[in-house]
């Protein structure tokens, strides 16, 4: 990884009773597409606004290319923001919106024109350059907001819920589009989102936040495969979670049994949950023997089953009343609702989930 463009050290911020940032430290690398992911109120927007210079920190500092940003004003920072509402200037044409930041820099007029034209080309808005924001669709406005920020060639582009205002289909298109654009312009993107799918699709790395703290920073794949705790596990995708007890070298699941598992320092006897993704859960006929490598196997009954095109989702319930979601490829067998089966959990797919600090 190349050097850190943004380094956040021990950031703390509170608004009255609410603690928005509770000691956040983070490094974001040059050229990275970085996502701050978490539920609303987790502090991700506060962190983004602190980087942009819109909110000061109570404690800690933010370094840009190694230099403390201190209390510098937003207009002094080589960092630009794409606002959630896009915040286009309603009284200016698209072209003037995009040129606004360059005019503030007092660049020569022909350089401004050239750069504006170039960026309008990149986002595909050449034909709409003389429209006003009120005459644009949501997706077009989003592109103007993006163009207006990237034309400044910021060291870091901050995106506050960039796709939240778009409808579902456009949102999925724009996820890919943003990713492509980021490659094309070669800027560092920091995006705030509450949508885990969006973060997983776009980001190189994701920081999962909750209650003003960072729970885990990892690539999408690692987050999915090795969530650091119970919250991350349930926030990223679907995870079946079983409550167990930590043993000296693993976890015990009453009354099914005990396996060796890296337990991340949970003290023996302490509660410890284990998780498994639905696509790792294996469903077998009632009398079939579990395959090798199975950690736990127990009888259950099929409650509902849904055929969703490329996948089959099955919900089963074991004798203790615990529900399990299992997902199989479309080629798999669709089980009859109410039929008996055996749930097998492969050892390799089990993840120990400490309660987490938050």
């Amino acid at each position, binding site marked *: 990884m190349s050097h850190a463009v943004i380094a956040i050290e021990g950031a703390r911020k509170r*608004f009255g009773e609410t603690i928005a940032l509770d000691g956040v430290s983070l490094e974001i690398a040059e050229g990275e597409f970085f996502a701050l992911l978490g539920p*609303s*109120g987790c502090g*991700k*927007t*506060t962190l983004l606004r602190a980087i942009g210079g819109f*909110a000061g920190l109570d404690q800690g500092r933010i370094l840009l290319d190694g230099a403390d940003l201190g209390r510098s004003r937003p207009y002094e920072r080589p960092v630009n923001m794409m606002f*959630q*509402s896009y915040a286009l200037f309603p009284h200016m044409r698209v072209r003037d919106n995009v040129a606004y930041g360059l005019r503030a820099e007092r660049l020569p007029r022909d350089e401004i024109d050239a750069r504006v034209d170039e960026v309008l080309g990149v986002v595909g808005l050449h034909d709409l350059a003389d429209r006003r924001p009120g005459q644009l669709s949501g997706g077009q406005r989003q592109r103007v907001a993006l163009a207006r920020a990237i034309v400044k060639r910021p060291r870091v582009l901050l995106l506050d819920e960039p796709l939240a205002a778009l409808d579902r289909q456009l949102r999925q298109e724009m996820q890919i589009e943003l990713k492509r654009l980021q490659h094309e312009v070669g800027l560092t993107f920091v995006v*705030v989102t509450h949508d885990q799918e969006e973060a997983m699709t776009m980001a190189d790395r994701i920081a999962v936040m909750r209650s003003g703290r960072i729970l885990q920073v990892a690539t999408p794949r690692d987050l999915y495969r090795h969530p650091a705790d119970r919250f991350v596990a349930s926030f990223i995708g679907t995870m079946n979670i079983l409550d167990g007890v930590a043993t000296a070298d693993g976890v015990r699941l009453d009354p099914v049994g005990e396996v060796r598992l890296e337990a991340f320092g949970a003290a023996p006897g302490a509660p410890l949950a284990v998780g498994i993704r639905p696509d790792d859960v294996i469903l077998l006929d009632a009398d079939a023997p579990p395959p090798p490598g199975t950690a736990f196997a127990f009888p259950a009954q099929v409650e509902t089953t849904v055929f969703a095109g490329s996948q089959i989702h099955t919900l089963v319930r074991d004798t203790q009343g615990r529900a399990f979601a299992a997902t199989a490829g479309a080629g798999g067998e669709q089980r009859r609702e109410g039929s008996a089966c055996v749930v097998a959990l492969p050892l390799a797919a089990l993840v120990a989930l400490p309660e987490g600090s938050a």
Partner: protein
Amino acid sequence: MGEPRRPLLAAYMGALFAFLYLPIAILVVLSFNDSKLATVWRGFSLRWYEELFRDTEVLLSIRTTLVIAIAATLLSILFGTLLAFGIERHTRSPALENGIYLPLLIPDVVTGIGLLSFFATISLPLGTTTVIIAHSVWGTAFAAAIVRTRLRGFDRSVEEASLDLGVREVPTFLRITLPAISPGIIAAALVVFTLSIDEFIIAYFTAGQTVTFPIQVYSMIRFGVTPEINAVATVMLLFSMALIVGAYLIARPRGPRAARPGEGPA
């Protein structure tokens, strides 16, 4: 995000409120001053209030003003509400929509002179009646504007539901529409009433020999500054403020405001 902390602006706001309220506050304080001189405090006294309540001219003018205000308010509400309905429901004429604000844009002196000339020409004797008519001219505009705002926020499908459930137009209007917009009507009534009580210039031209309360105050100010005016001011102040707070409590918007972007942490 918290609101921007702007100590300078906050200090300015404090100074502005001092500017707005100190002069009034001084009147209130002086109304309890035993001395005739504004600059000398001779102790707490209610003597100006006693004088005020023995002053039959003042009391009579208050009575006249109340009669005028009540009548003008009733007329204004009647005309204004009908006008609001007509504009909201039965026309799409921008000229008319903007036209209802026209009476509010005409300076009081012009309205007053116009009516004075008119009443003189048709030989209608000046007095309480003419002031009532004069006040209802702009009162109607105020009432229409306020009721119309309320009418706009009213979901018509509620009326349609009533019709659908088998209630005819008139009972639907009385049982559904009127209660829904009544806060707007009451607020409009309070506003017109308060403005009528305070109105000076138009009444000055159209009252003839009749003395309304503002005209009485005006002549008291012109012909000798006595602390009795301070007592009058204090009583008026309390009365107006009570009316306005009442209007605000009735007409205040209900329901949560839409959250504005940028508020609250993430």
